[in-house]
C-alpha cells in the first residue's frame, strides 16, 4: 500500500524551486550521524526535516532530502547481509561503470574534481531546495551545526537562471512519468501511458510486465526507496553555438537545403531571422526533437510557433513522425515508436530532475566560466533504466538501425572523427551532419539510494 508520508518528496514530483544545493558529506562519527538521521525524519534537535511526498496545503519555504551511497550505507553500519541485497551497479558505484556511461576521455572519473575524485568518501548527499541563496545557507548551517556526525566534502549549487530554460537555450522540464497515485491522470494530455509506481519506487509493479525489481533487505530499509544517478554535467555552450553556425553554413550550400527549409519559410522559425540563423535553429531543434521553446517536432516539424498551439507532451513517434530518429528526446525515450528491443518501449523511462549551474552564457560576452546541469536520473533500477538508456540508446543507438553507430547529438560521447547525425527531409531522404564534438562532459556524480522515511529511521536506530 502506497504511503506518501513514507516516500521522500523529491522522487515522484519536483518542488519547482529555483535554487538547489547539494552537500556531499562523509560520515565522521557513526553514532552522531545516526542520531542526525533519526532526528531529520521529524525535524527535532534543530536538524532540517525531510520533505516527504505527503500533500501540503502551503508549499514549504525550503525542502530537504537525503541520498546515500553504498559506502554511506556501510559507514552507517548496515550489515553485510543487507548490503549484499543491493544491486551490483549501485555497489560498484558510478565511477566503475564509466565506460558504459560514456564517461571516457576528459569525462573519465580520473579527471573529476573534488569531492568526486574520492568517491568512496562520499557517503551522503543532502539536497536543499529554496527560493533564495540565503535560505540555502541557513538550512546548510542548520544541518551541519554542532556535532552532526558528518564532515562536508564539497557542495554544488544550481540555479534556474531563466525559469525552465537551461544552458544551450532549450526549454526543459516538460515531460516526466506520471503516476496514478500522485497526478490527476484523467486530465493529463500526455500521450504516454501512466507509469506504474514501480518505475521509480521499490516494491511495486514495474513497466516490465511480470518483472519485479529486488527490494533491498530488510524490508524497512528497501521498501519505498529509489535509486538515483546524480550527475554533474558540464555544458560547452560556446562549442554548441559554434557548431550550429558551422552546420548552418554547410546546410546553406547543400543541394537539398530548399527541401529542408523552403525559401521564405525563415519567419516560421523565428521573427526576423536570416536564412542562416533560421537554419541554426533547425539544427538545434533536430538535435533535441523540440524547438528551443519546447514545441515538439513530432507535432510541429516546420515551425517553432504553430497556430493553433500544440500540446508539448501529447504526441507519439509513430507513423511518419518527422522528429529525427536520433534526436535527444526520441533516443532517450522512444515512447510508443518502433524500436529494436520490442519489450523495452516505456520500460526504460525514468524521472529526470535537473537544474542548471553556472552563470547564463551570453554569446556577445564569451567567458571561461564552468556551467552545466546538476542532473538526477531517478528510477527503481539503475541498470534497467539509467544505464540501459545510456549505453545502448544515448550512445550506440541500438534501438533503431537507422541510427546505430551514432551517439546522442547533445549529450553523447561524440568524437568529431566518427560522429554523425541525420536530419530527415519530407521526401524521406536525409542530410547527414558530421564532425559533432562532445558538447557535454561529466564532471562528477554518484549512484545513490533514496531511502524511505522508514529506512532513515531504521538506519538511525542501528546500534552496532
Amino acid at each position: 500500500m502506497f504511503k506518501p508520508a513514507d516516500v521522500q518528496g523529491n522522487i515522484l514530483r519536483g518542488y519547482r524551486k529555483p535554487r538547489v544545493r547539494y552537500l556531499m558529506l562523509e560520515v565522521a562519527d557513526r553514532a552522531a550521524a545516526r542520531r542526525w538521521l533519526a532526528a531529520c525524519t521529524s525535524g527535532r534537535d534543530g536538524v532540517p526535516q525531510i520533505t516527504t511526498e505527503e500533500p501540503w496545503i502551503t508549499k514549504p519555504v525550503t525542502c530537504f532530502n537525503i541520498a546515500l551511497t553504498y559506502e554511506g550505507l556501510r559507514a552507517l553500519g548496515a550489515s553485510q547481509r543487507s548490503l549484499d541485497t543491493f544491486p551490483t551497479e549501485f555497489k560498484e558505484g558510478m565511477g566503475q561503470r564509466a565506460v558504459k556511461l560514456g564517461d571516457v576521455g576528459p569525462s573519465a572519473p580520473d579527471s573529476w574534481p573534488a569531492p568526486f575524485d574520492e568517491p568512496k568518501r562520499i557517503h551522503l548527499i543532502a539536497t536543499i531546495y529554496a527560493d533564495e541563496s540565503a535560505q540555502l545557507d541557513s538550512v546548510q548551517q542548520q544541518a551541519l551545526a554542532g556535532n552532526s556526525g558528518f564532515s562536508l566534502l564539497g557542495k554544488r549549487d544550481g540555479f534556474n537562471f531563466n525559469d525552465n530554460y537551461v544552458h544551450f537555450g532549450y526549454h526543459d522540464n516538460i515531460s516526466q512519468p506520471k503516476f496514478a497515485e500522485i497526478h490527476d491522470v484523467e486530465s493529463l494530455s500526455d500521450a504516454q501511458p501512466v507509469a506504474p509506481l514501480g518505475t521509480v519506487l521499490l516494491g511495486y509493479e514495474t513497466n516490465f510486465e511480470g518483472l519485479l525489481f529486488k527490494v533491498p533487505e530488510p524490508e524497512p530499509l528497501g521498501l519505498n526507496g529509489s535509486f538515483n544517478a546524480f550527475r554533474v554535467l558540464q555544458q560547452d555552450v560556446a562549442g554548441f553555438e559554434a557548431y550550429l553556425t558551422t552546420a548552418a553554413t554547410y546546410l546553406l550550400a547543400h543541394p537539398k537545403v530548399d527541401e529542408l527549409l523552403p525559401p521564405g519559410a525563415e519567419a516560421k522559425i523565428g521573427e526576423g531571422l536570416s536564412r542562416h540563423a533560421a537554419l541554426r535553429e533547425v539544427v538545434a531543434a533536430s538535435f533535441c526533437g523540440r524547438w528551443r521553446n519546447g514545441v515538439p517536432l513530432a507535432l510541429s516539424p516546420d515551425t517553432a510557433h504553430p497556430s493553433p498551439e500544440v500540446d508539448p507532451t501529447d504526441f507519439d513517434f509513430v507513423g511518419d513522425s518527422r522528429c529525427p530518429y536520433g534526436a535527444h528526446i526520441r533516443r532517450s525515450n522512444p515512447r510508443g515508436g518502433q524500436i529494436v528491443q520490442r519489450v523495452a518501449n516505456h520500460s526504460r523511462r525514468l524521472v529526470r530532475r535537473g537544474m542548471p549551474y553556472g552563470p547564463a552564457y551570453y554569446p556577445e560576452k564569451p567567458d571561461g566560466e564552468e556551467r552545466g546541469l546538476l542532473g538526477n536520473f531517478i528510477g527503481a533500477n539503475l541498470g534497467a533504466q539509467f544505464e540501459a538508456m545510456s549505453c545502448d540508446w544515448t550512445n550506440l543507438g541500438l534501438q533503431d538501425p537507422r541510427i546505430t553507430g551514432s551517439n546522442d547529438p547533445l549529450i553523447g560521447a561524440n568524437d568529431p572523427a566518427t560522429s554523425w547525425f541525420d536530419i530527415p527531409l519530407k521526401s524521406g531522404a536525409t542530410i547527414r551532419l558530421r564532425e559533432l564534438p562532445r558538447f557535454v562532459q561529466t564532471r562528477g556524480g554518484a549512484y545513490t539510494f533514496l531511502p524511505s522515511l522508514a529506512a532513515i529511521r531504521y538506519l538511525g536506530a542501528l546500534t552496532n
Partner: protein
Amino acid sequence: MPSNLPSNLTGDLTSDGSWFDRLVDRLPQTGLMKFVAARILVPYWAWRYPVEKQPGGPPFSIQPGDNVQRMMNLVMPLKDKSAVGRAIAALAIAQNVDDIYAGLDNVGTVHFARFVIVDNNICMLSVYDGDFTNYIRDFIATIGSVFDAVVGLVEGGDDVIPSERNIEKFIDWVHAHDMYQVPDLATGILRDQEALKGDTADTGNDDLRLLPRDLILQLNVNTNVSLGSGYRAYPGYSAAQVRRQFGIGW
C-alpha cells in the same frame, strides 16, 4: 633464460651454451618438469600471487563498432552428470524451440543462439548487440520461462529462478558463467588484472617477462576461456541493421 619459452627459440639462442644450459632448455619438455610445474610451481604461484577470477563477456567499449555482434559463452555444469541428465537437458531445449525462436525475434538484438553439451556442461553460445545486462534482462522479460527450464538443471541454478522474480541475481549469475574473453593484445590481460584491483590508471610498467606467469595464473582461476572476443570476417553490424538491409523487418 626463462624456462617457459618454446625450446626451439631458446635452443637457437643458447646453442653455444654449456651442457647445463642445454639441459635447462630441455627441461620444460620433460615429463618430470611438467609434473613439477603443474603440481608444485603453479599452486605455489597461485598462493603467493593470488589472482582474482576475471568476469565473463566482452569488455564494453566506447567504439560503437565494438559493441555489436558480441559473444556470450555460458558454460553451466549440469546437476545430473549422467546420460539421463544430458538427455533431460536436450529435451528442455527441444521442448522450448518455438519459444526460443519467438524470443530471438522479439528481443531484437540477437544474431543467433546455440546450445551445446560438452562434458556435462550445458553451454549457451550466442552473438548479441549492445550491453550484456540489457540483453539478458530483455530475454527474461520475453521468454524467462525458457531460461528457468535450463537453469533449473544447472548446479546453483535453483537460487536464481524464477528469473522474473530474481532479475538482478539472475543477471549476475549468468554473467559469472560467461567465459572470460582473453584479450588479443598481450598487455590486455595486465590491464584486466589492474581493472579488477580497481586500478584504472595505466601504470606504463608492463613487465612483459611476467606475462607468461600472469597468463598461467589467470587461466588457473578462469579455466574455461574464450580466446579473443570472436573474430569477424566483416565489420560489425547490429541484427536490426542486417534485417533492415535485407528487408525482412526489424
